[in-house]
């Protein structure tokens, strides 16, 4: 007996089904409007260069006294946290009574080529934090950093601990040298200076391609075979396209900041090893003594769980909480489980420390 138990008739039936789905799907695709995203209403509270800080409006007034500022990664657009009505971390946090702000970094261009991590962290983030604190009428705020934005939030909090009441990190890389970190393995021996000196800002397409190459067969082939399955379902197809739009809607990376991030984080692993300086300040995670909530995804192929787990030993806080989410790097925002589990967990944790 061989490994295959496929009758010829079943095989052709399967092929026919696939073909019919594609036929109908082609028609459905023609009838779809351009997908929208970022559904929660928001107001601009601060603007500087291409950066805008928004405050989201919930259906009811926030009950939390300390606002949350979401610091997203530079490598993607932040509307992942507010993708659609039933997939929105922001919306669910608002429903819990939280007061939510978000930094939108915009799309850097050639003029931003020389922005450094110092400009981003001690400049943009610090002034955004001040703006949010002033807007909310408080001295300290809660910081929620996501992915690379989480690493930035850690640096910021270590350098300006008096401005942060509680720190939350989501899918945040801390130890960049865990053996399962593919991106780190690829960049470890690269000449960061040669790379940035040559191409300046790092093109979004190149970044996207690198992410796709982490799992090339799944992300370049299998995903689109799976798409055929939902081609005749308009709603699911719209969700799929919305996600596609987000995945490939990536800003270019400011050259200097990229050079520093690659050299000091990916290659030097200085966030945990020590010796990291941003501008003229030293980053010592031991100075993070306020409560810390660290949420990571167990099936994260971009930021391996062990990379995030390293935070526990690195921070100086005695009030450290860790949540392992059953899902992936994106699923932690958009999956049904994420909607049910993540916002309430954040709210409850904050409420206990308000």
């Amino acid at each position, binding site marked *: 007996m*061989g490994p295959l138990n496929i009758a010829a008739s079943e*095989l*052709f039936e399967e092929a*026919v089904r696939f073909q019919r789905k594609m036929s109908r799907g082609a028609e459905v695709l023609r009838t779809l409007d351009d997908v929208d995203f970022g559904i929660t209403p928001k107001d601009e509270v601060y603007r500087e260069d291409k950066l805008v800080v928004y405050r989201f409006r919930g259906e009811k007034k926030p009950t939390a006294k300390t606002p949350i500022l979401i610091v997203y990664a530079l490598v993607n657009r932040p509307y992942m946290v507010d993708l659609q009505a039933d997939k929105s971390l922001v919306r669910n946090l608002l429903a819990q009574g939280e007061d939510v702000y978000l930094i939108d970094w915009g799309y850097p261009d050639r003029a931003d080529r020389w*922005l450094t991590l110092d400009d981003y962290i001690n400049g943009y983030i610090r002034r955004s934090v001040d703006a949010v604190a002033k807007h909310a009428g408080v001295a300290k705020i809660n910081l929620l950093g996501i992915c690379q934005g989480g690493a930035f939030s850690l640096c910021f909090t270590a350098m300006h601990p008096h401005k942060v009441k509680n720190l939350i990190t989501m899918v945040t890389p801390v130890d960049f040298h865990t053996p399962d970190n593919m991106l780190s393995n690829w960049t470890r*021996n690269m000449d960061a200076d040669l790379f940035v000196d040559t*191409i300046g800002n790092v093109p979004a397409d190149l970044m996207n391609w690198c992410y796709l190459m982490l799992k*090339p067969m799944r992300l370049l082939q299998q995903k689109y075979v799976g798409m055929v399955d939902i081609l005749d379902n308009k709603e699911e197809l719209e969700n799929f396209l919305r996600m*596609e739009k987000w995945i490939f809607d990536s800003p270019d990376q400011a050259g200097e900041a990229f050079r520093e991030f690659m050299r000091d984080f990916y290659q030097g692993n200085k966030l945990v090893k020590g010796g990291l300086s941003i501008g003229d300040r030293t980053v010592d995670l031991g100075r993070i003594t306020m409560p810390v909530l660290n949420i990571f995804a167990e099936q994260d192929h971009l930021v391996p769980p062990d990379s995030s787990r390293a935070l526990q030993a690195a921070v100086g806080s005695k009030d450290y909480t860790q949540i392992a989410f059953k899902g992936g790097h994106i699923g932690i925002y958009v999956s049904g489980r994420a909607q049910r589990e993540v916002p309430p967990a954040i709210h409850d944790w904050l409420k206990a420390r308000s």
Partner: protein
Amino acid sequence: MSEPLDVAQWAKNWEAMARQAQAALGANPGQAPWGVGSANAGWADALGKANPFADGKQQNEAMERMLSGAQGYLGMLQSLAAAAAGQSGGGESLADAFRNGLFPGAFSSSTMGNPMAAAMRGLAGSGARGFDQMMEQFAAAAGPMFDKARGALHQPAFGFLREKQENLQKTAQVFIDYQEQSARYDRLMLKVGEQSFARFQLKLAEREEPGRQIESARALYDLWIDAAEEAYAEIALSEEFREVYAAVVDAQMRVRQQVQGEIERYCNELGMPTRSEVDSIGQRLQALRREFRNLHENDAGHQALLAEIEVLRNEVAALKSQPGAHAGSATTAAPARAARSSTPRTSKKARQAATSSTRGKNAGSKADAAPTRGVEKGEGKGKRTQDAQSVSPTVAGPVKAKPSKAKTRRKPVATSSAKRRAKRSRSEAGKSVAAAGAAVKSTAQGGGKGKPKGNSFAASIARFARKSKTASAGHVAQSRKVGSGKRGGDR
């Protein structure tokens, strides 16, 4: 960055598979069991409408990605159909077909090719566009030539065109390096392909047990994806991959940089602005913006401090106005003590500034600034400091050092004795200033009893005043006036 969509080819593939199906199922050639012929035209037509040149960009992109991605699956279906057709005709079974590696088309070049090259192909930026074509042209035209004359690349350049020759040699060298590194990367990807098959065979073997068999083409496809991903991950996480990946990226960066450099050289000759110039301006602009922002924030901080001082002043005034505020009020007494104690320190700073200025460091600036501070902080005492220096500028600290320096300058070839004299002169100048400072301090503190002794600054002033018949009365008067408050101690 996916491969261009070829809708016509897709339609042909389906046609071929449909014929196989007809043969396998023994269907009437005139019928189209699953969309062959006229029915097939329907979906092919739909795909045609969804091609990149039709309306609706987003949907077309989605369709293009989908078709490109699904090529592997289609290839597998075709392979299975061919095997099934063979089976019905008495040929080998599906399982046999897999054992024999009969799996054409399942692994498209888009996924098993060199992904890095594909990524770089889409890079934007100066010197980047057309990179792929540039490499192809180079490989076709210059490659064989350089391969034969590789040794010539290291020959020394000379003569009028030395620079150009060197640049050409370097350009050729980086191209060759990139080709070599790219080939290493391709070999590694080939290894991924081989190991994917090996893993796939193992996984198939595991499914031979009853109850674990694969019952659909889709399940088989998913198993193949699992095998390929596992093989890829193992290599992509290896140290070998790390080294090869870095080498191919670095090599390509060197090619780009070299090409950019050539373009810049031509642009310079034509008087055209270059990327380097624009970058340079951008860098300066960013530095200025940073500086401006810091100044602005510092100024804001300064204003905040002033506002805070104003608030504190008001609070102090309010406290003073309270009944009994002067009767042993610790709050008001403390600042007064602080003010008293700060004054002598200021004078010391002034002396230090004067001393350092005699050593030729920042001459004038510190000495000028110090008395001013003295005046601001302690009127009477600071004023004396200032006046003491203004009695005779030729004797005052900052200027005192000049003769010795001038002396040294007059004799460029300084003898050892001249050096000793200069050193002694500087030493005496320093001592006199220090003594003057001590005298001033003494005066400021109400001391200065008796006649100044030795070669102190004050003594010098006194001697100068006695000896100089032509000394202006104003100077002497001023000097006396300075000391009049405290018995003329500065003389």
